[in-house]
């Protein structure tokens, strides 16, 4: 589904060219659970932004569902983001003036989905993520775990094929962090490709595929694509859901 071929990305800092990614080859299929690990500055976030079409590679090709998406213009890329990609951020990025329900509804509004359908979809998501009684609360009235649950509900509201999570537990305590991970892993079972960026080896270790990056390059990859989740992870994922 996702195919990166010899992708590089370099930035100009002052009058120097700094390579953030060098010759990345990566392919991810539906239902993959991939963690990208590495020290800060290793290019893992840049890779995630490239996959999420928030950034364009300096060279190389990126194919999503067989189509070359690097050649698309701003409007087309936005459409791909809207339909196929969901984001979960470390700092949640909820709109502070909007209620939980409205935050979840945001991608549906932007996609121009009729209000009636939006309502049913949002109600279902609130239900699924145990937020039904928090629907009319604004982010500042929610706990960290609840905020991230709203963010995940928002990320999945358009039924994306790929979910990109950048340190999704970075701002959460251990218990809520585990809860959030369980929710994300539950999505993998629904054939969503989950790509998790983290510097935490324990968290990254939960994925079937683990990619280590240093200095803009993939230095090692363990695990296999398309394999079922290990029994241990699956059991935990299920018990974590309500």
């Amino acid at each position, binding site marked *: 589904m996702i195919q990166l071929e010899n992708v590089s990305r370099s930035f100009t800092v002052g009058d120097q060219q700094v390579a953030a990614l060098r010759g990345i080859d990566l392919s991810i299929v539906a239902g993959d659970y991939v963690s990208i690990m590495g020290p800060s500055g290793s290019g893992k976030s840049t890779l995630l*932004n490239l996959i*999420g079409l*928030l*950034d364009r590679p300096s060279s190389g090709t990126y194919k999503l569902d067989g189509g070359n998406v690097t050649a698309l213009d*701003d*409007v087309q*890329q*936005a*459409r791909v*983001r*809207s*339909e196929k990609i969901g*984001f979960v*951020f470390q*700092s949640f*990025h909820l*709109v*502070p*003036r*909007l209620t939980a329900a409205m935050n979840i509804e*945001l*991608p549906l*509004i*932007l*996609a*121009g989905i009729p209000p009636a359908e939006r309502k049913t979809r949002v109600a279902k998501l609130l239900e699924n993520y145990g937020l039904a009684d928090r629907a009319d609360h604004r982010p500042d009235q929610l706990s960290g775990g609840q905020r991230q649950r709203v963010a995940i509900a*928002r990320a999945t509201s*358009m039924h994306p094929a790929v979910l990109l999570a950048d340190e999704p537990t970075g701002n959460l305590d251990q218990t809520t962090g585990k809860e959030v991970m369980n929710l994300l892993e539950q999505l993998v079972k629904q054939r969503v490709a989950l790509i998790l960026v983290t510097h935490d080896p324990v968290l990254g270790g939960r994925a079937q595929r683990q990619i280590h990056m240093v200095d803009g390059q993939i230095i090692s990859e363990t695990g296999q694509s398309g394999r079922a989740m290990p029994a241990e992870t699956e059991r935990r994922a299920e018990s974590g859901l309500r």
Partner: protein
Amino acid sequence: MRLLDVALFASGSLRGSPTRTLLMMLAMSIGVAAVVVLTALGEGARRYVVDQFSSLGTNLVILLPGRTETAGITPGMLIGQVPREISLDDAEAILRSRAVKRIAPLTIGSATLSRDALNREVVVLGSTSDLLEVRHMSMGIGKFLPAGDIHESASVCVLGNMIKRELFGNEQAIGAWVRLGDRRFRVIGVLASQGESMGMRTDELVIVPVASAHQLFNTSGVFRVLIEANSRDVIEQARHEAEEIMFQRHNGEKDVTVITQDAVLATFDRILTALTMAVGGIAAISLAVAGVLIMNVMLIAVAQRVKEIGLLKALGAPGKQIRALFFAEAALLSAIGSAAGLVLGYTGSTIIGQIYPALPVSPPWWAVLAACATALGTGVLFSVWPARRAARLDPVTALARS
């Protein structure tokens, strides 16, 4: 994204920072209100002057003795020379022109009007029966001056409304005798109350036949001849022919002045319209200032909402959608601001209308339209740059901003 959703989202972000929104709306509405009130004043002044002129009569040409552009001092007057007067025969002769419908000579003086023990100083107007039509006067009760020979000095008079009330109260005035100077006159009519027109209060006039007025004041010349042309198109012809007739009758001397009401009116109309527009334009500058304020605040809003913009992009909003959202915000602000401004402006002009009832204060439609258009225009125009800046934000750096 649906249009309604764009509007809802924009109004949501406006409500998100109420103080900022209120202040911007205030600036906008003050601008619009200023345009409305100031043009209403200008337009009121213009209409006041136009009304005053048209209450003089329509298609009016005025003949006055002396060769002057406007009524003023002639060189002859400085050396003790009085311009040759216009006689009643002169006035009648003007009727020979085919462009002239009717004439009314005017002689003005003041005399003491008395009835029994009551007396007061009044302005006496000597004229003919046609004055009623020419000057658009209307009768309260009784008859106006009788038609007939212009030289006949009948002892009849028509009283202004206020004079009648002062002298007779609720008593019957028609048929009663009053004394004007050293002559007795019989009251044959009372004018309807009309208020003031061009500085002459018809309510405080006494009108007598022009020949009687000449005897009363011991003169033979008239003060003015009011000439009513047949139609608007022949006003110029009437003016020219009146001048020509007077030229011949005064032995080839151009010693009268003929002015047309139309020319004077048109000049006033032009001056006051220009004034209204100038005042409106000055007020419109405040709208431009409000526009700059909107731009400034929008730029701040973009800077404050960088993360939100980055998020919207990540959630699948293309740049043009972000731009549309900021446009919608500016348009909403301007629209609500101008609506509030209109309310404020109309309230203001109504209050001014209450304070100065003589002034017909009402903002002209073009000024209202221009004010709203300028408000919306500047609002949207000045948000182009902030909206573009928002649309061009790099989502990666926008989201990374803490």
